[in-house]
């Protein structure tokens, strides 16, 4: 007799038990030994194009640093001055012919993953690309002290500098990831961002590209023939999530093995409460700020109707209680930076003079500029125009969205109307780069030293690249150059840096909101974890999972 009665409780229970049993007996792979392991990294944010020359996204750098090699890499001390503390990578040794001539000898074992040898021609080609104005690499300003890169023979490259300065070696090796000239020569210079190679790259690094499912995951596999030592972890899989908060949730649910930053105190608590996770604190290389667009949105030839006014910008900076915001959002996991710097920068000096939070003074300033609430709607206006602007924020960062709402309210109490433009990360980056915004909340993952990062983002050389707000101040740039070139003592250099940044702070091109301390969280089974603060996955090829702690995911062979 046909019946539509729901199945009895017993049958349901039996079915459920059977299902669980089946799930439990998951397929076991065959990999055993020291070179197995799958690292699943959960991250909110996705690479744009896997070509290091054209992308300034931190997540892109995380991936491409496994695919492409630099000539030499930073050592464990993080010292960027001189060349003693650097580790050979693509270059096995180097010497100085003259104080301004640096000669690299490439390691003859280095191979591209299609079999061809890495030659000096590749290095020269890479330099050409990084400095080509058509390619518009964001790293170009950092390479301005290099006069020329030439080849002496197939394994010898010569760098000539314009002048001597303490971080010459760093400038030569840190920014450029060497690219395969034989595969990229034909790509038209203006179309690098959309090149097919950027979605299926071929490199010479410890890992090979396997697959990239847009919006879902990206997979790299270890190159067992890597000349500097076979990576222990067989596979790296990045899992893209809606934002960092979801990434942490996945980590806690053990769907992922690693997360770069826990961001907030409650996430840290969740990770601490989980006995299978280990937390790794490291110096944060990130700082976040509200950047003002000094040019008119969409038309860089005209000044911005509001933000070209220095006094207005200064009043806005003084309106915000940055200390309270940092405390609310990050707890003890971030500080208010005294300028455009992360906690990693050695120039961090809490004595640096900046505009303090002073709403009364800000209010007086605004009134003096003519911004008064003449129609009683709570928003200041002048000549019929309200004091209003739009704040651009990416939806992938819960922190920035939180800040946006807090700032919106703090500005409202000052009589300033702020509307939020919350857009996807790629739209955010495109609009930022094109200058189509009033103000935005941006976060930079900085280099280990300020001499490259600060010119990229805050000088004229960064126009059309990382200097989204188009701020320039020749006086600032002069002092900046002196600071970068300062050969004398560290303290002397620090004082010069401080002077430069105080100049910048007085101009108020941005409101510097937070500089984080980072806490990475990894599954306990991963050992030998070494995290370099400027690039947390730089040393992932040395991480490993002991053979007796392999899980099913680790043993899968593919």
């Amino acid at each position: 007799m046909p019946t539509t009665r729901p199945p009895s409780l017993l049958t349901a229970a039996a079915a459920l038990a059977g299902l669980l049993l089946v799930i439990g007996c998951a397929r076991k792979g065959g990999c055993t030994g020291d070179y197995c392991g799958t690292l699943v990294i959960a991250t909110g944010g996705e690479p744009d194009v896997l070509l290091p020359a054209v992308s300034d996204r931190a997540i892109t750098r995380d991936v491409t640093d496994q695919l492409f090699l630099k000539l030499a890499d930073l050592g464990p001390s993080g010292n960027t001055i001189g060349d003693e503390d650097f580790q050979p990578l693509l270059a096995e040794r180097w010497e100085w012919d003259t104080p301004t001539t640096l000669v690299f000898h490439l390691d003859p074992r280095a191979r591209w993953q299609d079999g061809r040898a890495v030659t000096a021609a590749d290095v020269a080609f890479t330099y050409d690309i990084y400095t080509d104005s058509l390619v518009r690499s964001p790293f170009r300003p950092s390479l301005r002290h290099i006069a020329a890169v030439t080849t002496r023979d197939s394994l010898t490259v010569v760098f000539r500098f314009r002048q001597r300065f303490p971080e010459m070696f760093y400038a030569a090796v840190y920014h450029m990831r060497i690219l395969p000239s034989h595969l990229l020569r034909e790509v038209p210079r203006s179309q690098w961002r959309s090149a097919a190679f950027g979605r299926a790259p071929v490199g010479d690094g410890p890992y090979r590209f396997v697959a990239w499912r847009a919006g879902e995951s990206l997979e790299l596999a270890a190159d067992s023939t890597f000349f500097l030592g076979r990576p222990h972890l067989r596979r790296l899989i990045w899992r893209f999530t809606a934002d960092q908060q979801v990434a942490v949730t996945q980590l806690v649910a053990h769907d992922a093995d690693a997360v770069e930053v826990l961001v907030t105190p409650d996430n840290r608590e969740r990770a601490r409460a989980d006995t299978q996770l280990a937390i790794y604190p490291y110096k944060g290389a990130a700082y976040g700020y509200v950047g003002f667009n000094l040019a008119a949105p969409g038309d860089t030839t005209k000044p911005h109707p509001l933000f070209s006014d220095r006094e207005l910008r200064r009043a806005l900076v003084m309106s915000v209680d940055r200390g309270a915001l940092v405390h609310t959002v990050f707890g003890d996991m971030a500080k208010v930076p005294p300028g455009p710097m992360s906690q990693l920068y050695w120039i961090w000096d809490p004595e640096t003079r900046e505009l303090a939070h002073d709403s009364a003074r800000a209010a007086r300033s605004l009134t003096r500029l003519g911004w008064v609430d003449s129609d009683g709607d709570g928003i200041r206006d002048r000549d019929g125009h309200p004091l209003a602007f739009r704040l651009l924020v990416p939806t992938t960062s819960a922190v920035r969205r939180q800040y946006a709402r807090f700032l919106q309210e703090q500005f409202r109490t000052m009589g300033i109307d702020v509307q939020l433009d919350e857009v996807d990360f790629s739209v955010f980056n495109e609009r930022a780069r094109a200058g189509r915004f009033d103000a935005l909340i941006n976060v930079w993952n900085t280099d280990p030293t300020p001499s490259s990062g600060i010119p990229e983002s805050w000088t004229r050389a960064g126009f059309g690249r990382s200097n989204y707000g188009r701020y320039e101040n020749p006086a600032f740039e002069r002092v900046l150059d002196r600071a970068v070139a300062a050969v004398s003592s560290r303290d002397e250099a620090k004082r010069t840096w401080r002077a430069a940044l105080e100049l910048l702070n007085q101009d108020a091109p941005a409101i510097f909101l937070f500089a984080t301390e980072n806490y990475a969280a990894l599954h306990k089974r991963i050992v030998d974890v070494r995290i370099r603060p400027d690039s947390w996955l730089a040393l992932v090829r040395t991480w490993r999972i002991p053979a007796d702690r392999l899980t099913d995911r680790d043993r899968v062979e593919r």
Partner: protein
Amino acid sequence: MAAWLVRRLAASIAIVWAVVTLTFLIVHLAHGSPCGQPDGRPIAPEVCADLTRRFGLDRPLGVQYVKYLGALLRGDLGESLSLHRPVADALADTLPNTFMLALTALILDFTLGLALGVYQAARERRFSDIALGNAALFVNSMPTFWLGLVLLLVFGQRLGWFPVGGLRDLVLCPRVDSLPCAADFAWHLALPALTLGLVGAANTARYQRAALLDVVRQDFVRTARAKGLPERRVLLVHALRNALLPLITLFGLSFPFLLTGAVLVETVFAWPGMGLLAVNAILQRDYPIVTAAALVASVMVVLGNLLADALYGVADPRIRARAT
């Protein structure tokens, strides 16, 4: 019957064509050429050239329309601006996931709803009927995504009985090609399908209860009772068979609900179906995907109605008799 079905089919095709035209007009209204995007994002010159050639963007509107129709008939839905691959490929990857979700939700919906409706009808006006009826009304009134959030929080995060979103274990089961992987897929499917299914079941239960009570009052049921047949048999065999017709209507009407619900539920559970694809595409202003998704959704709605009509014709002999 066949003639009637053919007429309905023709009407459906006409509707789909009208939707296609409407979509084309709307896209054109927003901005005439894909080489100029709403947020001014520059498109690579060769992509622009290819689009111009394919759709005749420099020609009059009529020509563009014809080319657009031609491309659609060829299965060319354009190129995604954010995923850098053909839209048809992206849809082909995600549509099966939405289909699985919707199908499972539909099964849950109808089995739960039917069971509940019958149970309530059997206990008409008694406390269990009223209580369940109100509970069903409440569930039906919930925002679907909110129910999903609550289920995810309680059963996913707090209790850990189900995964916190996603389609599958990326590492162990990149394809569903074995029994454990099928089980893993089902385990990931459980919460999202339950979310959609519960809300639908509440609705189905209400309709089914009303339909059954209506039928029960009719003559043939009284006859069956008079014959001395047990109440359960009367209800389940005689009454239910006739009260199943509204289910067919509900089946047809459920497609729009499932598609809309899929958008929100897939977002909450990070389920990579067509809904999530559309949402991500919107956030990235990737309009080729969004318009394609809207088109596909419309086609599915029309198909659903067609199917419901056909089933109705099969189920109800009165309609069949009228049609021939």
